């Protein structure tokens, strides 16, 4: 029998992989994908906890997370394209005007 603990463990693993990806990758689009992976991992934990408690609140919160993530992706990718338009690069190393 698969218990919610299994799902939470998987969520932890996915979250950590996403976090490492955010730190390691330098293509801004891939970094965004890793952030999405982290959000998905948290959603999985929410759904697992909802199942554990037998109440739907966790699922509602996961739903809200999805909505916020969709909005975030839209704005983030628009920022990316506008950065790409001016700097001709999608690498986070090239957007360094605010450094120091």
């Amino acid at each position, binding site marked *: 029998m698969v218990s919610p603990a299994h799902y939470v463990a998987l969520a932890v693993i996915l979250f950590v992989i996403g976090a490492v990806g955010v730190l390691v990758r330098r293509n801004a689009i891939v970094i965004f994908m890793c952030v999405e992976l982290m959000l998905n991992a948290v959603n999985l934990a929410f759904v697992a906890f909802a199942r554990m408690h037998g109440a739907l609140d966790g699922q509602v919160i996961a739903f809200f997370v999805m909505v916020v993530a969709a909005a975030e992706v*839209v704005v983030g*990718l628009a920022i990316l394209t506008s950065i790409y338009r001016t700097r001709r690069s999608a690498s986070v190393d090239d957007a360094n005007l605010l450094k120091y």
Partner: protein
Amino acid sequence: MTHPLLLATSAAGATQETAFWVLAIGSAGAALGMILARKAVHCAVLLAVVMLALAVMYAMQGAPFLAFVQVIVYTGAVLMLFLFVLMIVGVTSADSVIETIKGQRLAAGVGGIGLLVLLSLIVGQAAIAPAAKAGPDFGSANIGGLADLIFTRYVFPFEVTSALLITAALGAMVLAHRERTSPRPTQRDLSIRRMTSGRPAPLPGPGTYARHNAVDMPALLPDGTHARLSVSPVMTIRGESAAAIAGQAEPVLAAGPGQPEVSPGGQPLPGGEAAGAWPEQEGAWPDQPDAWPEQPGTWPETADTWPGEGDWPEEDRW
């Protein structure tokens, strides 16, 4: 009545366990591949695998609504948006492997392991109960139950969400909008530009006089060398041009007008003394855009304002 597939019944226990392990290993592997794959498109595809696996897991945990939203919103909309932007930004979207901060990867790996240990300890300490006895909310009545919650207890966050969505849509439009700072070139401007550019004729097509006429096969000049302009620069940057790939194995075709003979094994014929010609051509590739006659540097004086970066007409940008 509850749906047997979407609900954790004891009869479906073994099936669910198998499904969980398959999906868990698959999604964790795909996630790992995502942070290891060098090409951004591969990352996107692997992320799709993770998201679909998670959708099935939602269904297994009695959240059919979220499962479908996951497929439609994440895999359908968000990921397609990612791919869309990848295609716009895509040419140089392969990640470089050079570390700009020394030891960053090692530090990130150590930090990741630390985070994994920390979270594992937290989850290990927490008392995660087995799943409660599932009511109808986790099966056939899932959507109704969610609607009850969203429109009663969570109605204020729901309204705020709508404001967020409108703001995001507006923000995306504002950010992606590009103001035209120079007047749109008329057909007359374009033709003058073309005539003064030094190349009034179209670019040579790929594959002319070459072994085959695929788009990645450069045309051959009368002396047997590659016509660089015949292959899209995008393919060369991505290393997908046949000339770029074969640049080492097949340095240059044996010189001689009209006889670009290569032995069937792909080896250059003996006596290809022109072998030195290709590497310097290859070296000329990265600054190819500067060498192109269509660059703004050669724009005629008809344009009042100098076109800014990213403000070229569409046909010049790619």
